Every structure is written in structure tokens, then in C-alpha cells.
């Protein structure tokens, strides 16, 4: 049985599944329930500076996107950082860490951009016995209007500066949480690294309006007839998060910077995908908010089974395994030629492949009077759209043409040499063969 124990930048936890800093981690009561349910770690709901706490709206603070049968696909929120007194949170964190010494407890922090504020909050959280701090440079709503959260995360110089302060005023491991609301995620990651961060965590939520109420003509969630943009999370954001994690993981300048993966992790498989792209652990929020803390049991059993099936002894064997295969477009092998193949026995004759190809692609699927659908190899560019729209898994596949065979579309023989755009004759910038 694979060992799920996690050691992320020296912070140990029974498994790599942490709860992200968010509503589920706002109170001792919730966090105790989370640890009892099996979560390996918790990033406590973000703490603000000493003084009267922030207030939240008193109307709805979440909006959602649903799939079939109201399966929640995306969640958006306009909740701020913890709205409970700082000392209450610190006392609770202290008690929880005392009672759960083997679980990871991280303090998430967000205070104004001045050194004293950060120095002060760090001195307070150190006394809780927490295992590290996470700097919340990500929240895109409310706090950002006050110069915090993503307002910091969007300026690499600020990211570096605050990170430096935190490293200077504490010995705790520092994780910098990045906002995705930026054009190049590598820039703030580099800034965090340059500031001495032990790790980055990403993604925080994405600026979003989930829906518009077409009777009120207002975004949802609607507060007295108006709405503000919120932070988007849940399964819908996972592809965006995976790419940003990979961008950091494969950047030579950022090599070795540990990553805590966040963004729509709902099942063990999602977690494994983040890890394969370089995340040392994952943080989860929306899935727990949708289904409750018990889902971690499936994540634990699923990841464990997968590691066993792959013959991996521990999570470390998985982390980063897919990173070498994430390349730039120009590095892809243009001599890799595939054609769609339809399994006629599996086909249920819905015709979606035909409609998609005929209307929107390459007219490479034929339809007979008896609704038999066949691929026209002369036209098929292997775009994969038919595979994507087919409702039957495995019915349409992409099969590689063997070397030496003539590609009916081009009339040229298939080569088994690797050749990419950089050397292609149509490329005006092509490199001369050496």
C-alpha cells in the first residue's frame, strides 16, 4: 500500500489533502470536524490585522453554475476574510494544533502593505504553534479594493517585498498564494521566489460574474438589486489552474519552487493530475463545500489505489511526472499523424460527430441512409472534435497512421522522424539544419 504521508516544505501531514483557506476553515468547530474526517491539513481562513474585524454582506454571498441534475460545476463568492475577532481565531488555532499535532495547520494572512502590519501579525500567529503561513495575495473581491489580496498579487514587486518581510520577521515556512487574475502567472511566482518564499500555492479564485438575473437585470448573487464580481472556483476552473501550475513547474527559472495545487480539486483523480504537473500537495475547498468533509475518504482511497497500480511507493514518485511532457506548441511532432476511427459496434447512431464535423469542421465524416457514420480519411485532419462530442466513451478514437503509409489527405507517406514547426519549410523563422 502506497504511503500517502506528505512532507511539503518540511510541513508534515498524514496525506497531501489540505483544506484551502476559505469558509470551511473559519472556525475550530469546522476544522476539528475536518481533521476527524481525514483531512491532512488545513489552511485557516485568512486572518486580518488586529482591530474591528471586517464585515460581510448580509445577503447571499455565493453564486453558482450547475450542470445536469444541478450538479454544481462552478461557485463564485464575495465573502471576505474572517469576520471574527483576531484573538478568537488565534486561540482556536492554538487549541486545534495542540490537539492535532500530526496534522498541518497553516495560518493564512492578509494585512495592509506595510512592514509593521506584517511583523505584528506574524508575531501573533507564531504563538499558535502553526506550521507555516500562507500569504493571501489572491482574493479578487472586496479586500482588493482596499489594496490587499489580488491588488498585491498583481504587482510582482509587492509580492517580493511582502514575502521578504515575512521571511525576515519569522522562521515559519512561507507559502505565497497567487492570483490567477494576471496575464503571466510566472511573474508573481518569480517574485515570490526572489523574496524567499518556501512555496507558492495557486490558484486563488478568478474574477467572475456567474449569472445575470434576467428579471432583476443584476448579477448574482444579488444584494438589494445589485451585484459585485466574485471569485470563481470549483470544477469549472480546474483546467485554468492546471495550466498555471504547469507554467510554473516547467519554467527553468522557477525550477524547484514547491507548489501547492488549488483549483477545482474534487476527486483523487483531480489531485493526481495536479501532482503530476508538479504540485507537491493539493488544497480543496469547493468540493468540501458541496459534499461535506467526507469526500476526503474517496480522495485517500483513490490516490492510494492509483499509486499502488502504478507501483509508486509514495506521492513523491508522482509529483512532477508529467512536467517534461508539457511543451510549447512549436515542439509538437508534426509527423505524428492520426485519423478518427469509429467503432461501428459501439456507435449508437446519434450523428453528433457528423453534425459537428459537417457544420463546424472539415466535412470528414459521411452519413449513409441507414445512419452509418464513416470517416473520410482524405478530409480528416484528426482534430478530435468527433471524439469530444461523441456520447459513447471509446466509440471514436484517434489511431496513428504507421510510418510508410500514405496519408490520404496529403498524399504523402507518413514519416516516423520527429519534425516540428521550428524546422518546417513554411516557417519563415525556421532554424537552419545543423
Amino acid at each position, binding site marked *: 500500500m502506497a504511503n500517502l504521508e506528505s512532507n511539503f516544505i518540511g510541513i508534515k501531514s498524514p496525506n497531501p489533502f489540505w483544506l484551502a483557506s476559505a469558509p470551511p476553515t473559519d472556525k475550530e468547530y469546522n476544522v476539528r470536524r475536518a481533521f476527524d474526517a481525514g483531512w491532512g491539513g488545513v489552511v485557516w481562513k485568512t486572518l486580518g490585522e488586529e482591530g474591528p474585524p471586517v464585515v460581510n454582506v448580509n445577503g447571499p454571498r455565493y453564486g453558482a453554475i450547475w450542470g445536469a*441534475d444541478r450538479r454544481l460545476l462552478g461557485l463564485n463568492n464575495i465573502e471576505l476574510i474572517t469576520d471574527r475577532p483576531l484573538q478568537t481565531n488565534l486561540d482556536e488555532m492554538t487549541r486545534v494544533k495542540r490537539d492535532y499535532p500530526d496534522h498541518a495547520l497553516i495560518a493564512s494572512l492578509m494585512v495592509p502593505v506595510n512592514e509593521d502590519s506584517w511583523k505584528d501579525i506574524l508575531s501573533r500567529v507564531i504563538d499558535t504553534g502553526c506550521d507555516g503561513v500562507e500569504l493571501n495575495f489572491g482574493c479578487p473581491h472586496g479586500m482588493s479594493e482596499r489594496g490587499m489580496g489580488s491588488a498585491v498579487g498583481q504587482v510582482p514587486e509587492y509580492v517580493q517585498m511582502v514575502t521578504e518581510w515575512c521571511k525576515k520577521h519569522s522562521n515559519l515556512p512561507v507559502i505565497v498564494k497567487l492570483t490567477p487574475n494576471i496575464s503571466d502567472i510566472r511573474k508573481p511566482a518569480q517574485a515570490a521566489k526572489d523574496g524567499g518564499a518556501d512555496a507558492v500555492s495557486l490558484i486563488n479564485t478568478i474574477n467572475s460574474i456567474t449569472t445575470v438575473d434576467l428579471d432583476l437585470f443584476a448579477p448574482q448573487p444579488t444584494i438589494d438589486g445589485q451585484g459585485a464580481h466574485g471569485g470563481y472556483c470549483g470544477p469549472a476552473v480546474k483546467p485554468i489552474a492546471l495550466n498555471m501550475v504547469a507554467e510554473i513547474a516547467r519554467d527553468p527559472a522557477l525550477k524547484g519552487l514547491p507548489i501547492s495545487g488549488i483549483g477545482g480539486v474534487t476527486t483523487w483523480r483531480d489531485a493526481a493530475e495536479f501532482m503530476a504537473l508538479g504540485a507537491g500537495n493539493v488544497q480543496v475547498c469547493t468540493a468540501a463545500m458541496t459534499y461535506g468533509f467526507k469526500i476526503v475518504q474517496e480522495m485517500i482511497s483513490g490516490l492510494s489505489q492509483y499509486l499502488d497500480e502504478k507501483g509508486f511507493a509514495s506521492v513523491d514518485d508522482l509529483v512532477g511526472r508529467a512536467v517534461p511532457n508539457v511543451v510549447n506548441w512549436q515542439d509538437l511532432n508534426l509527423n505524428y499523424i492520426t485519423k478518427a476511427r469509429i467503432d461501428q459496434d459501439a456507435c449508437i447512431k446519434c*450523428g453528433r460527430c457528423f*453534425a459537428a464535423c459537417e457544420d463546424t469542421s472539415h466535412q470528414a465524416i459521411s452519413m449513409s441512409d441507414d445512419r452509418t457514420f464513416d470517416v473520410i480519411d482524405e478530409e480528416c485532419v484528426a482534430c478530435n472534435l468527433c471524439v469530444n462530442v461523441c*456520447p*459513447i466513451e471509446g466509440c471514436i478514437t484517434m489511431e496513428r497512421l504507421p510510418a510508410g503509409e500514405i496519408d490520404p489527405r496529403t498524399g504523402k507517406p507518413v514519416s516516423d522522424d520527429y519534425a516540428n514547426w521550428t524546422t518546417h519549410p513554411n516557417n519563415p523563422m525556421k532554424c537552419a539544419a545543423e
Partner: protein
Amino acid sequence: MSDTALTPGIRAGRLNAAAYDENFGDLHPRLDDHEALVAADRCYFCHDAPCVTACPTDIDIPLFIRQIATGTPEAAAKTILSQNILGGMCARVCPTETLCEEACVRETAEGKPVLIGQLQRYATDVLMDQGSHPFARAEATGKRIAVVGAGPAGLSCAHRLAMRGHDVTVFDGRAKPGGLNEYGIAAYKSVDHFAEREVEWLLQIGGITVETGKRLGNDLTLKQLQADHDAVFLGIGLGGVNALGLEAEEKDGITNAVDFIADLRQASDLAKLPVGRDVVVIGGGMTAVDAAVQAKLLGALNVSLVYRRGRERMNASTFEQDLAASKGVRIITNAQPIAIHGNGAVREVEFEYADDDLKPTGQTFRLPADQVFKAIGQTLDGDGLPDLDGRKIAVTDTGRTSIAGVWAGGDCAAGGDDLTVTAVAEGRDAAEDIHASLMG
């Protein structure tokens, strides 16, 4: 079990009041909003969808299901009703398992088709409950058209003609319009006076006058109708009932299944409707099943449905056969009635087993019976009709008969299945042809 249930003979009130309500409640209650969204989401929006091909009225099923899925059931209803103005009733009575749902690719994939019939009912119910009618008449043409028979074919024809701007008079021999929708069809498929409400809703288009109690041959002649109108459409159904051809067929307790079904549909108090303790239904079609199941639901102790050929030859669909079996009807196949026994009233029916080619085997058996329903088919009734093709009125694709200016459709016309939905399609198509020929 109460004494009443065991009492021999044909008796009313075999059940308590709650049992009648339960037995004759909606067979498939309307989907609620969420159920409809979940069911609609299963539709793959097929290209040139097989379900549409399988629908006699060519309803654009993927489109109406998508309209439900996006929260516009009213638009879905209009999509349905523009092809099939009786889409509400067809949603209840269509043998979808042999039409659209049999063709559904999810039937192929999983053996579980999209619930097309129930989704159609959901959409049409939403619209009809709002009381609105989504179609309007074209500018008046001044043309007058007689429609004989206010069943599905006649009503469909009348509505389409009215929509095209013609003035339509619909004649029907019965007291109420609706035809088999009102007088046929098992009660649990059309609860809460749906057939009546649907006719009222259909007539909202205007331009249609309904004259009931007027029957071709008795009160009307085809010649006079032609003289008084620019065109005539015959949707007179099948007024006659086939006989068993046995001696003693007139004994007390032996009735036509269609009359039993009509009485049941029109009964204001089912507890006053008598039914036998031992009921035998002879026939293998939908009418036979409707009579047998409802006899059972009325409290008959033993109901046997006896069909002369093998089960796979029965006209009743597998779904209907399973429904009958689930309600406790015993289905006996390969048996022909050869004698009726009893002194004044029927006491037993004697059958002889036969193979699928109806070759008698010489082996006989008797079933006790205090009530027998004949359901071996209906026949065209009337004189002076257009030329026949076999036993029904010969028609072209668009319902033209041998008499110029006279169209026909529905069960009385040759060709097509004897289904409500087929009748609606034929009435609609004849209306378009009448319109084209009058306005040409």
C-alpha cells in the same frame, strides 16, 4: 377481501372509494420541473434525429426537449403543437415504446430512452395550464368546410383549416366531441377530463363550429354536405364492431369492449359501474388491454385476455402487455372461442387451442365468465361513402378520396396504423391539401 369482491355476477361497488381513486389515477403523473430538466438533459440532440423520423407527425423532438432544458416549456409546446395539435393527448396515449422512444439512441445505448412522451406531456401541460393558445387564424378566406367526426383526425383537420382562415363546421354523432379521445382510451391515461379540456383549448383558435348529435347517414348526407360546403373531410372512425360469429353471442353479459370503455370514461361515479367477477376479454389489441386492465381495476377478481394467435402477434405493445400483467390480467394466447355456455346469461366461454396459423388443435378448455368483452376489431360503418380499399376508404397520401371535394383520414381511411397520432397527421395533411386545392 370483502364479500363484494367475491360475489359472482356483474355487480357495482366491488371496491371501496379510495381504491377507485387509486386505481384510476394518472398512470404517469406529469413530471415536475426538476424531473423534466433531468429528463431533458439526457437528450443528445441527435443530427437528423431518429425519434423524429419515427414520429408520425414529425415533431421536432430534439428541439422541443432543448427548449424544455433551457427553461422555455411554452416554446417547446409550440414546437410540438405546430406539428401535432393534439400533442397533449398523444403524449398520454402514444405507444412511444414502439415509436419515438424505440428509435431513441439512448434506447440503443442503455435500453433507457429519453422520456420523450413524458417530456411532451410536461411541455403541453405547462402551456395548456396557462390557458393560452399559441396559434392565430390567417385572414378569412370565406371558404366553408365540413368535417365529419370530431375525433383526432377531424379535430386536427379542423384546427389546421381554421388556422388557414377557413370556416369549419365539425359534426359528430355523439353527445361530446373528442371521438376516441373522449370515448375510447383507458381512463388512467386521460384523467381530469383531459380530452374535454383539450378540445376546448383547441377550439380557442376560433372559426370552428361543433355540432354534436349529427351522424352521417342519419342526420347528414354526404351529398348535402358537399352542396353546403366547399370541401368535406371524413374522419368518421370505425363505427361497427366485429362479431365473434358464435351462436349465443347475444347472451346477457356479452358486450363490446369499446362500449365498456366508453361507459367507463363517461361514468361520473365508478362505484356505480358494474363489472363481472370472472371477466373474459377476447382480442389482442389496445382495446382488449384497455378493457381487461380496467375491468381488473374496477374490482373483477379474475380477468383473462384471450388472443387467438401467439403473443408476438398481439397488436398491443409489449408495454401494454406488461401493464396488463402487472395489474393481474392473465394473458392466454393461441386460443379461439368456439362456444358460449350459459342459461340466459353467459357462464363459461369454451376455447380451442390453435397454432399461429390458426389451425385448431382439437384441445379445448373452458373459462368461467360472467362478463365477456369482445375486442376483435372495429369496422367501417355507413353507406354512400367514397370507394373503399379493402374495408376502409381509399385515400391518396393527402387524404383525397374517389369523390372530388371529399377527403378522409383517421381510422376510417385505408393505410397507416390505427393510432391517435396517425389520425392527427392525416387530418393535418388533408387540411393542407384542402387549403391548397381551394386557394390554388
